[in-house]
């Protein structure tokens, strides 16, 4: 299915991820080292006994050299041991397994909305570049990018949950328990998150489509008497469809970051609330675990989209 060139390309890309992974995990590991003072005392919490502090120092290997500490931490993390919450004592991996799917559900929902609305808007703008529709779409997308998403989330709550009770104001239902209710609960947060996503998708799609429509080979198609409609739909879109992949990988990163704040507005038991509460309560193992999970997700998505990109667009692997 894959030619040798593509296979070599994919291997190269996979190998490139290794240093990024090591650096990323090392940075996450170093987060705790930034703590002022003795980490063991901070981790033990207030009024901890001397034995508890010694135990923590032993558990975290704080008396060993830095690289050994990192290796131990990474090895434990690989086996799913990210230590446990300082407050509840719950294993961090258990917490993450509970809350991460909720965040992923909302992120996927928001990205789906961004694409379903953003793609037609981008095509509309590019097809009438410079026209009224184009100006309107570009104006909306400028506003979408500049909107604080937690603020638009609140406006949605006031308008559609308090004034009219079309949607619930807060809360979350797991899609595994009740898919329909899950969608109903997740709609307002997802739409709030998608405000900037729609803007991003339509803007990117418009600019790459306009660029392609102005290129030489489209002038040729036009000169051959092909109607604009089929130039746009049959040739233009095929050329930009791969660019969408890049936009999506960008969106995953942005949306994942934005959910953190939007989840707080809707009191959704996801990564955002977990990380914010843990930070405010100085529950550092949870903060560290949550950051790790999010960074690994972004790195994986980047890797997968890059690999898909090189498989779908033969020009890339031939370079």
């Amino acid at each position, binding site marked *: 299915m894959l030619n040798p060139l593509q296979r070599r390309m994919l291997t190269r890309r996979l190998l490139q991820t290794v240093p990024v992974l090591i650096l990323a995990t090392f940075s996450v590991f170093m987060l705790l080292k*930034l703590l002022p003072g003795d980490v063991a005392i901070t981790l033990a919490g207030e009024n901890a006994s001397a034995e508890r502090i010694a135990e923590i120092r032993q558990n975290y290997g704080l008396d060993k050299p830095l690289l050994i500490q990192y290796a131990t931490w990474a090895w434990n993390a690989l086996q799913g041991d990210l230590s446990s919450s300082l407050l509840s004592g719950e294993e961090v991996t258990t917490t993450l397994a509970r809350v991460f799917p909720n965040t992923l559900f909302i992120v996927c929902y928001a990205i789906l909305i961004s694409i379903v609305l953003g793609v037609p808007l981008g095509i509309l703008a590019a097809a009438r570049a410079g026209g009224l529709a184009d100006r309107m779409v570009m104006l909306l997308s400028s*506003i979408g990018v*500049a909107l*604080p998403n937690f603020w638009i989330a609140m*406006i949605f709550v006031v308008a559609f949950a308090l004034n009219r009770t079309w949607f619930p104001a807060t809360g979350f239902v797991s899609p595994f328990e009740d898919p329909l209710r899950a969608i109903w609960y997740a709609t307002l947060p997802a739409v709030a998150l998608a405000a900037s996503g729609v803007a991003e998708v339509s803007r990117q799609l418009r600019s790459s489509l306009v660029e392609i429509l102005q290129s030489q080979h489209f002038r040729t198609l036009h000169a051959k008497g092909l109607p604009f409609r089929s130039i746009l739909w049959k040739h233009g879109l095929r050329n930009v469809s791969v660019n969408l992949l890049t936009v999506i990988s960008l969106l995953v990163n942005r949306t994942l970051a934005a959910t953190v704040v939007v989840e707080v507005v809707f009191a959704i038991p996801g990564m955002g609330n977990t990380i914010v509460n843990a930070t405010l309560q100085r529950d550092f193992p949870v*903060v*560290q675990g949550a950051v790790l999970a999010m*960074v690994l997700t*972004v790195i994986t998505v980047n890797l997968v989209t890059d690999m898909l990109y090189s498989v779908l667009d033969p020009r890339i692997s031939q370079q």
Partner: protein
Amino acid sequence: MTDATTSTPAAKIDRDGFPTRFRYWMMDDPVAAIGLAVLIGIVLCAIFADWIAPYDPTLQDYGAMLEAPSAAHWLGTDDLGRDVFSRLIHGASASVYAAFLAVGVASVIGIPVGLIAGYAGGWTDEVISRILDTFLSFPAIVLAIAVTGVLGIGLTNAMLSVGIVFAPQLARLARARTLVLKQELYVDAARCFGASTATILGRHILPNAIQPVLVQMTLLMAVALLAEASLSFLGLGMQPPDPSWGSMIARAYIYAQIAPAQIYAPGLAILVTALAFNTVGESLREALDPTARR
């Protein structure tokens, strides 16, 4: 992005002084002129907040809580009877401080790193580029939250971490420009005359590489502003009782059932400021780069 513009009208503009070029730019793009005026207005608000604001932003009046807009309180009062309009004006200083601090930190770290990576090439470049890739895969706000939590909660720490997260974006741009510029003849000439690496980077490459970086810095101001609002909203940025647009929204949201109108003003302030930064940034990009036309 070539410099082959000797016979185009742009070359004429290039010979003019800054005031003339500035006038051309503003006349060419009235929307950007409005954006710039808005930004100047906000900076003035931030500097002269004490004189402009009709009330002390932390003055509590329990006789007038959650009041609707009136002649005495143009935007009403919050849950502690504080004047929302005064808090909005004082909030501008938090936003301006936050945006400049974050972008300042990002450029102090990012620009030199990018210049060095691009100029040195080879292994140095390879290592720095991997580090940049790594930091670009961190969701910005998430890292800022974690670093703020570790360093201690507060606006300055929050914006320092946002600045660190932004640095790779500027470094990447500076690196890309340096890769092109280091092959220019005048850089070769400087090297032949025995100029030190620092001189070459500072006097010959940086001035020519700075334009796209400046554009990105303007656009990052908007992102920093939104980040400040988000972090203050989460309680990790500006601490009470000092006002910030983000924390004003957070507080107003608690009372959204009773006084929903309170959440609009600070959000609009954030939106307008971010929009102004973006408009000026995009316009600057087009003004500086004659090949990028709409």
